[in-house]
């Protein structure tokens, strides 16, 4: 009797995890999507029912319309912002990693440079931006420098932390087998720093976009080379609020895409060996 009951219960119990796994995946997409539909519908309803003027709060439909009709302007601006963000991010990665390696390899470099890296990081970028705009040859370069200053620090400090937190026994092992400094760096310290570097990359990705926008706010450039931030300000001055919303949505989406891309890179590189990328099974 009890045996029969447990026989009957067993398949149901084993069937549970499979079902919950696939329904879990569905929920992860369905719930946020439903939430968005709900919010947009509520927004639309509010604007229609209370007849809110579009220069105060445009309805979602009007924002979509602005996105469509103003795409030539917004699309060009998006490209400019993307170029600055990714160029800054790329330079931040190269510069951050190179400086981290230099500082970890040589105590002199660390003593001489690290305090200034910290000063650059803690001084608010909006406060430095006007100066940079005066000194840089073009506005684009000024924006790039601003975005780089903000984005490189998390890469630098995380990579340094990773390079320094190498297992002492592994360092002993390398010494024992007569590894050169270069070999120790290449085969031991850099792989060890990879998870730290990737955490820095995820922060730097978001910061590069933020800094690109903030710097453009400070620069206030106009004309052909304008990015999304300038278009946003311009829309505000002209009370073209639908376009402002459209620019804002584009910025948000860019941030989300950068975060998703850096997270995906991180997952791909770590999935085989690092605790952060592994599923815990108890």
């Amino acid at each position, binding site marked *: 009797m009890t045996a029969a009951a447990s026989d009957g219960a067993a398949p149901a119990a084993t069937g549970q995890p499979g079902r919950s796994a696939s329904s879990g995946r569905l929920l992860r997409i369905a719930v946020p999507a439903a939430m968005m539909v709900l919010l947009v519908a509520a927004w639309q309803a509010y604007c229609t029912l209370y007849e809110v003027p579009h220069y105060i709060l445009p309805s979602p439909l009007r924002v979509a319309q602005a996105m469509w009709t103003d795409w030539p302007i917004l699309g060009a601006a998006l490209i400019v912002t993307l170029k600055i963000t990714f160029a800054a991010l790329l330079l931040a990665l190269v510069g951050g990693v190179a400086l981290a390696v230099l500082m970890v390899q040589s105590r002199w470099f660390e003593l001489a440079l690290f305090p200034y890296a910290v000063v650059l990081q803690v001084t608010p970028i909006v406060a430095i931006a006007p100066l940079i705009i005066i000194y840089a040859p073009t506005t684009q370069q000024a924006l790039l420098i601003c975005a780089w200053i903000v984005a490189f620090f998390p890469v630098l400090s995380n990579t340094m932390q990773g390079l320094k937190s190498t297992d002492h*026994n592994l360092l*002993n092992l390398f010494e*024992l*087998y*007569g590894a050169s400094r270069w070999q120790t760096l290449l*085969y*031991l310290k850099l*792989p060890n720093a*990879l998870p730290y570097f990737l955490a820095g990359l995820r922060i730097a990705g978001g910061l590069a976009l933020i800094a690109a926008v903030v710097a453009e706010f400070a620069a206030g450039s106009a004309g052909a080379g304008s990015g999304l931030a300038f278009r946003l300000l311009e829309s505000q001055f002209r009370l073209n609020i639908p376009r402002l919303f459209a620019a804002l949505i584009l910025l948000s989406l860019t941030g989300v895409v950068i975060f998703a891309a850096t997270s995906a890179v991180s997952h791909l590189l770590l999935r085989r060996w*690092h605790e952060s990328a592994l599923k815990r099974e108890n």
Partner: protein
Amino acid sequence: MDPQRASIPAGAEAGSGRPIIRLRNVSKTFSSGTVALSGLSLDVAPGSFVSLLGPSGCGKSTALRIIAGLGDPTSGTVEWPTSKHDSSGRPEREISFVFQEPTLMPWATVFRNVWLPLRLKGISKAEASGRVMEALDLVGLAKFAGAYPRELSGGMKMRVSIARALVTRPKVLLMDEPFAALDEITRFKLNNDLLHLWETYGWTVVFVTHSVFESVYLSDRIVVMAARPGRVFEDMAIDAPYPRGDAFRTSAGYAEHCRRVSASLHAAIMSSTAGLDDHL
């Protein structure tokens, strides 16, 4: 290899030939002022299995590291009388070191971990492949060459670590409590594997442990050390013949050796200035 060698106690052999490692009055004082070793002298005969046994803080791991060349002694000398010396007068020691933890690179597969010592000598993956697989085969892990360390059990990781030590075909194997963190069944198994490999290849093994039973089972010579300051307390030969197996583990002779070594270890602990209470 000389099949007779295994049954000769190391003490007798040490008198005949030159030692492979010779420590003379080695002292080590850390920057904190702690005296880890004081006047340690030790000759290790080629082909012997020497255990350094002692309470924690007796400097046995420090002694092993100094032998390995990881950190210089504060005073005294470490000589390698039988080794060739390079142009700058440094001995070309063919040693491998096994740490208490497996000390594997988590980002590298088992194969790449074992390849490491050869890779650092500039031997390419293709060239090293045969020797790496041979070393993995010796520890019974050839099937796991493509696995990552995290996918292995504690005992398997330790075996990878041993394979990495063996891949360079060392003359001297230095082991720092390599099995301390493993469960008893795995430890017995690896004890047997290690003894078997030692009998087959005739390396010299210096083995650091705090286990009386493990040291008696494995070694032909036990150096009991005392703490504060770290020094040699008693040098004991374990004259039971090899090969040793599970029968030896349960024999009266084994128990007698254990009793004798235990008594010596206890006396070593009591002789430390602070005594047993401080150790516990």
